[in-house]
C-alpha cells in the first residue's frame, strides 16, 4: 500500500497543516510517512502545496511528483496538478472555488465537494481543507477517521485547540459527503 497525496491551495487555507495532520495520523496508525512542503516564493502569497507519503513499507522517495491522490482547494491548484495524478488516481477538489469541465482520462476519478461552503456552515471557513481530508480518508480507508481526529491534538498548537471541534466536524462532513457520492458512481479503490 502506497498513497502519495498532494495537497494544494492558496496560502492561508491550511494546506501545510492538513498535510501534517495526515502524516501525524498515519504515523500514529503505524504507517511509514513523509511530509514535504513547497517552501519557495509561493509561500509569500499565491499557491501553497505539500506532499504526504503514506506507506506500509519504508518510503524510498519522499517526493510526490506523480500523486495517487490530489486534494485541490482552488482553481490554480486543480489546473496545475490534476494532469499529474497517476492513472486511476483520485482527485478531490473544492467545488466552492474551482470547477473542472474537461476530460481527465486515464481512469482518474474526480470528486467535487463544496468545502468552503460546508466550512462556512460549520462556522469557520479555515477548516475547509479538512472537508477534503475527511473525504480522502473515507474513500481510501487508509487511516481510521478517529486517528485523524486524535492527530488534531498533536498538530494544532495549544492556542488553537478551541478549533478542534470545528475541524472534527469538517472531517466528518467530508467523509459523509464522499460516501454519499460513492453511491453516485465514484468507485472505491
Amino acid at each position, binding site marked *: 500500500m502506497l498513497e502519495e497525496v498532494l495537497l494544494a491551495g492558496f496560502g492561508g487555507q491550511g494546506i501545510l497543516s492538513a498535510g*501534517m495532520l495526515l*502524516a*501525524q495520523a498515519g*504515523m500514529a496508525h503505524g504507517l*511509514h*510517512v*513523509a*511530509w*514535504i*512542503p513547497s*517552501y*519557495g*516564493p509561493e509561500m509569500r502569497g499565491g499557491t501553497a502545496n505539500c506532499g504526504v507519503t503514506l506507506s506500509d513499507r519504508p*518510503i*524510498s*522517495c*519522499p*517526493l510526490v*511528483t*506523480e500523486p495517487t491522490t490530489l486534494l485541490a482547494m482552488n482553481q490554480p491548484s486543480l489546473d496545475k496538478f490534476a494532469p499529474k495524478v497517476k492513472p486511476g488516481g483520485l482527485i478531490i477538489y473544492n467545488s466552492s472555488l474551482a470547477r473542472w469541465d474537461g476530460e481527465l482520462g486515464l481512469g482518474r476519478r474526480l470528486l467535487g465537494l463544496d468545502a468552503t461552503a460546508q466550512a462556512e456552515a460549520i462556522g469557520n471557513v479555515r477548516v475547509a481543507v479538512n472537508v477534503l481530508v475527511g473525504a480522502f480518508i473515507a474513500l481510501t480507508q487508509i487511516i481510521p477517521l478517529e486517528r485523524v481526529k486524535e492527530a488534531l491534538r498533536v498538530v494544532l498548537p495549544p492556542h488553537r485547540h478551541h478549533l478542534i471541534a470545528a475541524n472534527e466536524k469538517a472531517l466528518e462532513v467530508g467523509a459523509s459527503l464522499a460516501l454519499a457520492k460513492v453511491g453516485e458512481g465514484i468507485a472505491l479503490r
Partner: protein
Amino acid sequence: MPRVLMKGNEAFGEGAIRAGCRYFFGYPITPQSELPHYLARRLPEVGGVYLQAESEVAAINMVYGAAAAGARVMTSSSSPGISLMQEGISYLAGAELPCVIVNVMRGGPGLGNIAPAQSDYFQAVKGGGHGDYRLLCLAPSSVQEILDLMGLAFDLADKYRNPVMVLGDGILGQMMEPVELPPYSGELELPPKPWATTGTAGRGTRNIINSLYIEPEELEAVNLRLRAKYQRMEEEEKRWETYLLEEAELVLVAFGTMARVARAAVERLREEGIAAGLIRPITLYPFPDAPFHAAFSRARAFLVVEMNLGQMVEDVRLTVEGRCPVHFYGRTGGVVPTVAEVVNFAKEVWQKL
C-alpha cells in the same frame, strides 16, 4: 521507542543538543532557518548559548573562538553563507579545531535560489577555502539519519581535531519524517581537550592555537602531520550503504536526497527485470571505495545521479579507474530529478550495454 514527526532542520539542531553541543553561532538563510530558530529556543533550555552573529564571517570566527576554548560548537548556513565562511573554515582546519558545520544546500552559483541542490559537493569535499586541508564530510539522506549523524559528526570532529561538514539540501531540511527520540538524558561525559586554551591554572604552560608558520620547513611539517591525519580518516572513517548491490549489473550511485530518488528508481528498474543496485556514500570525504570494489566483478556500468551537473561523479571515476563505464544524470538550479527521469535515463544506459 516514542516516534515523533520532526523537520530535518530541527533534527540537525536536536542531534547537536544530544551530542553535547552547547554553542551555536550563525546567521539566518533559507532553506535552513528552522535550524537556528530551533536552537534559539532549545539551547537556553540546556544551559547553552545561541548567538545570531552580524554575518556568516563573524559566525565562523566565533566558532573558531569557542572551539579553541574546547567547546562543542557548531554553525549552519546554506550555500552562499557557507561560501562566506570559507576563510574561517580553512583557519579552523589549519589550527586543528573541532567543530560541526551544516550546509543545507540550495541552488547556485551566486545568489542562485532557495530550491534544493547538491552543487556544493566540490566546495565541501575538495576544499573551498585555501590550503592543503580536508573536511570530514557526512551526507544524511533521511531525518532519522540527520539526528544520528550529528552525534557522529561531533565525535569525529573531536577525535581528529578537525572541522566536520554535514551536507544536507533544501528537501532534507524542510521535510518531516518520524524519528525515534529516546528521552533526553542530559549532560554527556565528553573526552578532555588538554590542548584547549582554558587558562594555565593547574598546567603551568600556555596552550597556543595558531595556523601561522613563517618558516616553510615548519609549515611543511604541519602539512605532513595533517596529511597523516587525513590518511587515518581514510583508513578508519569511510561509511556507506548499499541496496540490492549483490548481483547488480547497473549500479546507481547517489547521496543525500538523490539517494532516496535513486533507491525508488532501482526498485522500478528491478520490477522491469533490470539488475540495478545502489551505492550510497554516507561519508563524501573520505570517499567510500570498498562498495565499488565489491561491485566490479558483476557491474557492467555505473550511473551517478546528482542534483548538480556532475561533481561526485569525478570521485566515482577516480574510484572506478576505467574498469567500467561511468554515466551521469543530473538536474541543477534547484530542479530535482524525478524517479521517472532517472528510470528512463537508466534504461537508455542499459539498452546500450
